[in-house]
């Protein structure tokens, strides 16, 4: 068990600054997910924690110990790689045992540890097989077992599910969550998939261009994004954003200049009665997808093209619709992307009356 602290960490590859002045505390026992588009520095951050990459500046602390000059093997960190990185010439048993042998653990104890762990991940019948004779899911389990058996203070997982098919991925996702509950160890998980991040993490760190955009709980990220990037990155479909120039009939009063107005597709209402208080948009349905429980519409309006998502409602058949977004569900951002919270709508009545 350990808390991880990154203090003013930076990373340069030659002249390329990948990460600049990163400060992050990963709580002891948390399931922290680093998420962001590719090239945002999330994997580099993870590799620096593991010690596979040396930071150019700053300090990394694991469990109250500065590990700047500690070799990867001495950091009490275990890692699961994207392509599992199993030793192809060793059996499943050999793979799990390798780390224990290097640690100098006696044969008797190794046997007990291996049989315990393979029981947990369901590998007992496959212990004497080579990795190439295993399925993707089984390899994944070997990688997990190899990491778990060392009883590390920190688990590091680098996109461990991206090589699995959709069904297996969901299954392993649940298993990983259960595993975290059971072990209570700190998990640091990297993914580019925000759905995966939302469903697994209890703490999510959204990164972009080597900087932390926001680190919060999944719900906080969804309901209270601090900037435009997080707002658009979290949620499927992404938050709809209008440039203030395209917004008509909305008089706003705020300390800072509003650059963008956004709303979540699932908070917009289609074809409700006109009494609903909110910003109203008139548009035309371009496409509609029905996924059973939910419908997603693409609607073209005078202010741009938006997505709207409805739940457990029948599919809207008409082509021209009016969409109402309740005022409390509008998000405002400065032109540099910063969120503005204190915004007053000056002419509410006028908007809905004069509006369309």
């Amino acid at each position, binding site marked *: 068990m350990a808390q991880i602290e990154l203090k003013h960490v930076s990373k340069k590859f030659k002249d390329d600054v990948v990460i600049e002045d990163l400060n992050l505390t990963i709580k002891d026992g948390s399931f922290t997910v680093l998420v962001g588009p590719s090239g945002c520095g999330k994997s580099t951050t993870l590799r620096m924690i593991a010690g596979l990459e040396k930071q150019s500046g700053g300090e990394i602390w694991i469990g109250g110990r500065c590990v700047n000059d500690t070799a*990867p093997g001495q950091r009490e960190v275990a890692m699961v790689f994207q392509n599992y990185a199993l030793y192809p010439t060793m059996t499943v048993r050999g793979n799990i045992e390798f780390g224990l042998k*290097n640690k100098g653990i006696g044969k008797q104890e190794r046997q007990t540890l291996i049989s315990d762990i393979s029981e947990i991940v369901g590998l007992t019948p496959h212990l004497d097989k080579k990795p190439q004779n295993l399925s993707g899911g089984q390899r994944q389990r070997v990688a997990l077992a*190899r990491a778990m058996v060392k009883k590390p203070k920190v688990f590091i997982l680098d996109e461990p599910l991206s090589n699995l098919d959709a069904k297996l991925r969901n299954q392993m996702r649940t298993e990983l969550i259960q595993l975290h509950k059971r072990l209570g160890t700190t998990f640091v998980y990297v993914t580019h998939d925000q759905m995966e991040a939302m469903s697994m993490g209890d703490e999510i760190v959204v990164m972009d261009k080597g900087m932390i955009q926001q680190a919060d709980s999944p719900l906080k990220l969804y309901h209270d994004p601090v900037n435009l990037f997080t707002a658009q990155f979290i949620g499927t479909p992404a938050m709809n954003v209008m440039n203030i120039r395209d917004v008509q009939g909305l008089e706003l009063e705020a300390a800072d200049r509003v650059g963008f107005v956004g709303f979540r597709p699932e908070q917009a209402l289609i074809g409700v009665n006109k009494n609903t208080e909110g910003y109203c948009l008139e548009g035309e349905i371009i496409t509609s997808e029905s996924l059973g429980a939910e419908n997603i519409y693409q609607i073209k309006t005078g202010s741009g093209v938006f997505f709207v998502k409805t739940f457990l409602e029948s599919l809207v058949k008409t082509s021209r619709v009016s969409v109402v977004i309740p005022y409390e569900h509008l998000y405002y951002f400065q032109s540099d992307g910063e969120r503005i919270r204190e915004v007053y709508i000056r002419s509410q009545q006028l908007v809905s009356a004069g509006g369309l």
Partner: protein
Amino acid sequence: MKAANETVGIPAKGAVIGGSMTVVRKKQAAWKTAVNVILQAANVICLLALVLIFALPFVWMISTSLKTMPETMIFPPEWIPSNPVWHNYIDAWNTGPFLKYFTNSVIIAVGILILQMATIIPAAYAFARYQFAGSKLLFGVVMVTLMIPAQLIFLPVYLELSALKLLNTHLGLILPFASSAFGIFLLRQAFMQISEELIEAARLDQASEWKIIARVMVPLVKPVLVTFTLFSFIAHWNDYFWPLVMTTNETARTLPLGIAKIREVEGVATWNILMAGNLILVAPILIVFFFSQRQIIRAFVYNGVK
């Protein structure tokens, strides 16, 4: 006729009359199989011809080694001697201290191989995996040595070893080949194919660099190592030039020199004894090759786990 054509699948004249689409198609298919059969036959004939070209000298060698001296001169040659003279092998063995030559050859070929393994594996790993100052330059130097023929530098090397009093010793025959540029190159390419994550995983498993080489990397390039072993063993087992330069007496003389000496025994070339000696020379190589064929083929077919 049509029915027969269907079952046999060879173009028959009767089928042409049918004229319907299926018949035309059948005819085409039949032609295809016929062409395939011819191509396959041609292929086999070509391969047989190739085998003949390579095998003929070898077969001739075996045949000659079992003949009497006058029989070797008969024209046209008699391929299978009517009375095989097995005694030729014993005669060849007895022309000189062959046991001594044989042990010398084994000590030298194996000694070279062990030293080469000890040097090329770490060197190839370093060239493949580490970025250090001058690594590219050093690798360039290694590659350049591949292009220098032994005959070009044998004199300075000879003088050097002579100054070290290593003439007529096993060490003098082993040391100049203690490393191999070819081996370093071959192994470096193989190491470079291995994913970096595997090494990282081993580092996280607290493995030292030596352990990573021994337990993770080397087992993965085993086919390449077997191939290199074979190349190196054959080259040094058969080497004639360097032992000729380095030896003046029997203490370190190797098999190829011993065989060559057979020619000089009676002033006339006793081809039958010479060929028997040659067979003694190549037998160990054939045995090694026989046992490692599968590994050699695998060395050229990269297989990795994804």
